[in-house]
């Protein structure tokens, strides 16, 4: 049992933290806010160069990490500055599915992802599927895809999409889901792009007899989808811990400097105790992320038990920390200009990807209680 980072991971963490601290200035944030994609090309290139994308993949896959603790480490650092670069979408979902299912030719795409030269997105969820991973209504006929895909994060910037479609079975069956690689400018594909509350962009995607190249065996996409979703859930949970750490620092600093009634407001016990409760939940969330990182490659039952436990706890902690930090700041916490706004918005939105607290509590009951 050991909770220390290995030397390699420590070096990666130090380098990445330094890099992001230098890059993520208020000027960059406002530049990102006005951008087409919702993130910075320059930072993405920089992350690839430091090896952050490679850290998501094993040596066999062309990376140099790929373990749960590698994912958690980089995602937490990105969270610490509120970074919006599409590590999850291009890396863990797009790259992850190619790594799991791609043939020799398709693996070339993964090399481009790791090098930072290729943007991807997973077009899986549909209007009405909510967080249900097996609910797919998009059809495939003679290799042509038709249907609608909802809130496809990074769907506007991606030049390659991975699209799920049902080749057999009922709408919610795990069996019968097929995956395809689709060119973003393929015929019959339309995208309506928009910015996201928590930063980054997404798109609603309509497919109308759109051609795609099969990725993996027909009808057998579910296991790989579940696996990359577990890894993505780990990443967004670790990112949330980074966000919460950053918010905690902002809030304690504010409590020490803001004076009312003749003293720093941090001297008031009512506020001290609320901060203490926040800190406890942040540490609980950190432990939950460690638990998931250590089990993300376990068999499906153990993995998914930890996925649901961690995402539930992180979702609850995220809401508490966001709401309490705004309250403890008072009026300044309500302003868009102050650094808290972006971090808190991004943190609140964590509960809306890969299953919220309601979804994961229900799933945890099925897996580990009853």
């Amino acid at each position: 049992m050991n909770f220390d980072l290995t030397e390699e991971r420590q070096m990666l963490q130090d380098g990445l933290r330094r890099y992001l601290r230098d890059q993520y200035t208020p000027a960059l944030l406002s530049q990102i806010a006005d951008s087409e994609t919702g993130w910075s090309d320059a930072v993405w290139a920089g992350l690839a160069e430091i090896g952050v994308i490679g850290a998501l993949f094993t040596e066999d896959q062309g990376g140099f990490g790929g373990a749960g603790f590698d994912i958690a480490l980089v995602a937490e650092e990105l969270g610490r500055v509120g970074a919006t670069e599409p590590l999850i979408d291009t890396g863990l979902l797009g790259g992850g599915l190619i790594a799991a299912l791609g043939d020799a030719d398709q693996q070339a795409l993964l090399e481009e992802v790791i090098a930072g030269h290729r943007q991807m997105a997973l077009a899986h969820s549909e209007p009405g599927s909510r967080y249900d991973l097996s609910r797919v209504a998009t059809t495939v006929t003679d290799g042509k895809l038709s249907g609608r895909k909802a809130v496809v994060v990074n769907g506007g910037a991606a030049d390659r999409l991975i699209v799920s479609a049902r080749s057999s079975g009922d709408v919610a069956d795990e069996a019968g889901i097929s995956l395809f690689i689709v060119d973003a400018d393929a015929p019959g594909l339309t995208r309506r792009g928009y910015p996201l509350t928590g930063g980054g962009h997404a798109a609603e995607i309509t497919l109308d007899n759109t051609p795609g190249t099969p990725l993996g065996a027909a009808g057998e996409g579910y296991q790989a989808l579940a696996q990359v979703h577990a890894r993505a859930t780990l990443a967004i949970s670790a990112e949330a811990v980074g966000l919460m750490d950053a918010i905690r620092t902002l809030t304690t600093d504010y409590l020490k400097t803001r004076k009312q009634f003749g003293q720093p407001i941090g001297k008031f016990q009512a506020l001290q105790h609320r901060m203490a409760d926040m800190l406890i939940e942040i540490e609980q969330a950190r432990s939950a992320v460690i638990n998931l990182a250590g089990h993300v490659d376990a068999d499906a039952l153990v993995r998914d038990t930890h996925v649901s436990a961690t995402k539930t706890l992180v979702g609850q902690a995220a809401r508490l920390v966001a709401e309490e930090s705004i309250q403890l700041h008072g009026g300044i916490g309500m302003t868009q200009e102050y650094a808290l706004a972006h971090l808190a918005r991004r943190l609140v939105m964590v509960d809306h990807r890969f299953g919220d607290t309601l979804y994961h509590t229900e799933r945890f009951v099925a897996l580990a209680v009853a």
Partner: protein
Amino acid sequence: MDLHYTDAQTAFRTEVRDFLAEHLPSRLSDKVRNGQSLTKADHEEWHAILNARGWLAGNWPVEHGGTGWDAVQRHIFEDEMTKAHAPRIVPFGLAMLGPVLMAFGSEDQKSYWLPRILNGDDWWCQGYSEPGAGSDLAAVRTSAVRDGDDYIVNGQKTWTTLGQHANMIFCLVRTSTEGKRQEGISFLLIDMNSPGITVRPIVLIDGGAEVNEVFFDNVRVPAANLVGEENKGWTYAKYLLTHERTNIAGVGFASAGLEQLKRIARAEQSGGQPLIKNPLFAARIAQVQIDLMAMATTNLRVVSAAAAGQAPGAESSMLKIKGTQVRQEINALTMQAVGPYAMPYVSEALEGDNDPVGPAYAQARTRQYLNNRKLSIYGGSNEVQRSIIAKAILEL
């Protein structure tokens, strides 16, 4: 980062588990599982079994007859003990006084008192709290005035846990009223059979009487029973409070309690099906189970830092708060689970003289719920712990 135990640690766990399977009397584990009271003889029997194996003093070094275990081994041992529903080791002599004597006692005190603790010759209790000194411990007023080779002690201690069984008490007493309050406190060992001592039980909200008031009326105590230096008792008291804290989260108690809760929720019927199938109840179990999974890792993070030689500081305050919240929630859910059979109060059944009204698992649940309201009050109330976190970690 590695969540796995080493081979040696896993082997140790197996060794502990096998020992408990063979040597823990089922009469005792049944009582613990059903939340019934243990007698003094029960505790002494279990201590003697552990002492015969050399496992009674988990936090003592080998030279004093302890195990010499590191923090991870202690954690594994405590974990297996609670999972097996073993009686907890009564902490007053072993976990509290022993380490203080080793650190600050004279050679005579060490060679006399430490073996007696291991052999069960003395039953110690703790004389810290007073009517006017609870969370604010430095307010102790019980006085000890030097008179030749003795101290004359006057005053009152309260919340003295299992003081009714004790023949010895270690006390914080005031030996000076000058300077800072903390600088006039001494650490004194007092024979409970001394003339002038009266012990009066306090019946608690659960109907039990595990705590007492202890009155001192001109009690003569040999000055040889002063530990360390006069007026330095505050240092020793704080040492005692921070020394043995790997188990402050009570992960083992919570795990055993959760398992028991699920067992009851499977046995109880609600709407024609097991209670555990009720989605609202199952969601509450899920919540506490999820909290416990994370807390177990938070605890291990602190334990492994302690094993690496870092003293647990204010992190133990976080564990205390979260640990007591989890355990109290489990108690509340367990009481809810037994439904109407939470209501009967049959004291004979609670003492283990079994003729329960309703299921045996139900009879002590309300008492346990009420009794464990203490968890968030004692050992520094959870509000005091929050203030410690605010100052020591958040630096507010």
